[in-house]
């Protein structure tokens, strides 16, 4: 699956980088046009954006030369997209990313201690495939240590 979906994933990231480069070029030109001179705040961003666009083209050209063709046959295009996403961001990574977003949101709402304890017990139990006892003990100890280090020693105002 990794090899089969590689061309689609590689081109997706390259086109994403190209889109970022083109967008930054347009924005840089806008900044440059507001204060058009050699020493303008837009000079370096424009120069860098042009470089980014050129490098994006080179990267796509390199990819066309190096990526093997013919292995990526899928019955449907939607299947190819779905499988590429699954390879790129597998379920463990997706779970962790979702957990971090919820954790950051919860930290602001219910406070550092409870949010961190729930996050660590939940994610450790998930990643260790159900070893909840060790996850619980590690979570309590680590939340305590982090609280002492950040909250009490370094006087960080934790939410």
């Amino acid at each position, binding site marked *: 699956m990794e090899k089969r979906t590689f061309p689609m994933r590689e081109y997706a990231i390259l086109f994403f980088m190209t889109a970022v480069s083109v967008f930054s070029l347009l924005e840089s030109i806008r900044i440059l046009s507001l204060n058009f001179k050699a020493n303008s705040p837009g*000079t370096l961003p424009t120069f860098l954006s042009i470089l980014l666009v050129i490098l994006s083209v080179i990267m796509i050209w390199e990819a066309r030369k190096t990526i093997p063709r013919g292995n990526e046959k899928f019955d449907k295009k939607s299947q190819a997209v779905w499988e590429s996403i699954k390879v790129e961001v597998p379920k463990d990574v997706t779970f962790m990313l979702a957990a971090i977003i919820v954790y950051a949101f919860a930290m602001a709402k219910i406070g550092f201690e409870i949010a961190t304890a729930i996050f*660590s017990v939940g994610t450790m139990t998930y*990643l260790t495939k159900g070893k909840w006892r060790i996850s619980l003990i590690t979570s309590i100890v680590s939340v305590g240590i982090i609280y002492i280090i950040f909250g009490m020693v370094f006087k960080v105002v934790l939410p």
Partner: protein
Amino acid sequence: MEVLSNMLVPFQDPKLLLLICVGVFLGIYVGAIPGLSTTMAVSLLISFTYAWEVLPALALMLGVHVGGCYGGSRSAILLNIPGTPAALPTTFDGYPLAKKGKAATALTVTVVQSVIGGLLGCLVLIFATPLVSKFALQFAPRDYFLLGLAGLLLVGGLSGKSFAKSVFCGVLGLLVGTFGMDTATGMGRFTFGSLYLMSGINYIVAMIGLFGLSEALIQIRDIGAVPIIQQKIGKLMPKWKDVVKYFPLTIQTSLIGVVVGALPGTGGDIAALFAYDYAKRTVKNPEVPFGEGAIEGLVAPESANNAAVPGAYIPLLTLGIPGDTVTAIVIGSLYIHGINPGPTLMTEEPSILGIIVGGMLVANIVLLFLGMTGIRAFAKIAEIPKGILMPLIIILSVVGSYSINNSIIDVYWMLGFGVLGYLMRRHDFPVGPMVLGIILSSLIEKNLRRSISLSEGNVFNFFLQIFSSPLSTVLFVAIVLMVFVQTRPGKYVLGKMKQRKK
């Protein structure tokens, strides 16, 4: 003289001494655990030490840097997994030795050679820094601009599989570094009306995301991929007879290490590979062939990678350009404390050079003792499942990025950079040049604009002035050559030249 007296400060101040010891201890274990890198540890430390005074913050980071560089060899020898990229060549002969039941010998050699390499590197740092600083005082703003570009291209050429991808990352980093209000005109750049973005993107947040979170996500992706096999070992005792026997090779490979380490964008990994290759070519009759447990195969990379650590501080202290990714974070820490590294640092802040050299000497001495102990504890730590370790790294990344400004928005930015770093690593876009770009952005832009102003606002004059100075011309030619050798015609010419030599 002031530098020399400042070098003694870490030896005399119990607090600094303790912090260096803690740093070395932490560094050894961070470096030894596969999946945790020194760069990640130092990027997390920066959020811890944000509000500290500069000297204790530096002491802790130096300790981690030195300890981490050595630590990678432990897992390289005992588990056949290099804890850090710099320990990769150590696996070539370290693991075969461990398989023969000589793990204790291999571990002893790596500790002793790391310490000697580190100390020799410090000597070069002491003598080279004033000389390079003196030379760097002659640099004009355009030279700094060209030097910054050359540094980025060098990083691009040496890291990652594709030159275009590496340079892309460096340029993207430079662009990200321009975000926010322009200090000269007050104009907002890439802010899109956001008040948060007016102050620019906090580079510590970017570093934690790109190095810390992205690495944790990569490890989670490959969870359980590499099974850990333990080796049984006895006590470690250095044999001075062996130290004397291999000393000539140690000196040679340490020098390779410090020189390679001093090149912006390189580091212990490249230094260790160069040194291993050098040893393989120059040691004619090793007792055991290379790759089957040759002691010389441990002496060369271990002395070189630890000598590269002080080497990496030479461009940082003299030119304000970091030598590797860890020093890129250290430079960020210095900026936070209002210190601008560069040729005037030695006159304006002589204590910094003194502390760095003194701190590194202390760290290497401490390493000799800590490196000989705790092997059993290491075995236990290495057994901690990634499923337990990675959530802890993520919590530290979240709390670390939050603590900089007590802002949840910083956490979301860190998360964004973490995801970007994860995708970049998956597709061979190296994150190191991007971080280096973010750090170097202000230096490059400030000097570009200053040199354009000196050229009466005329870009054509700016180019003419490059060719009016020998130094600028050399730097410009170096940049052109660096790009040329990566292009197809350049590679063709190089290939032809190699063929002619044969």
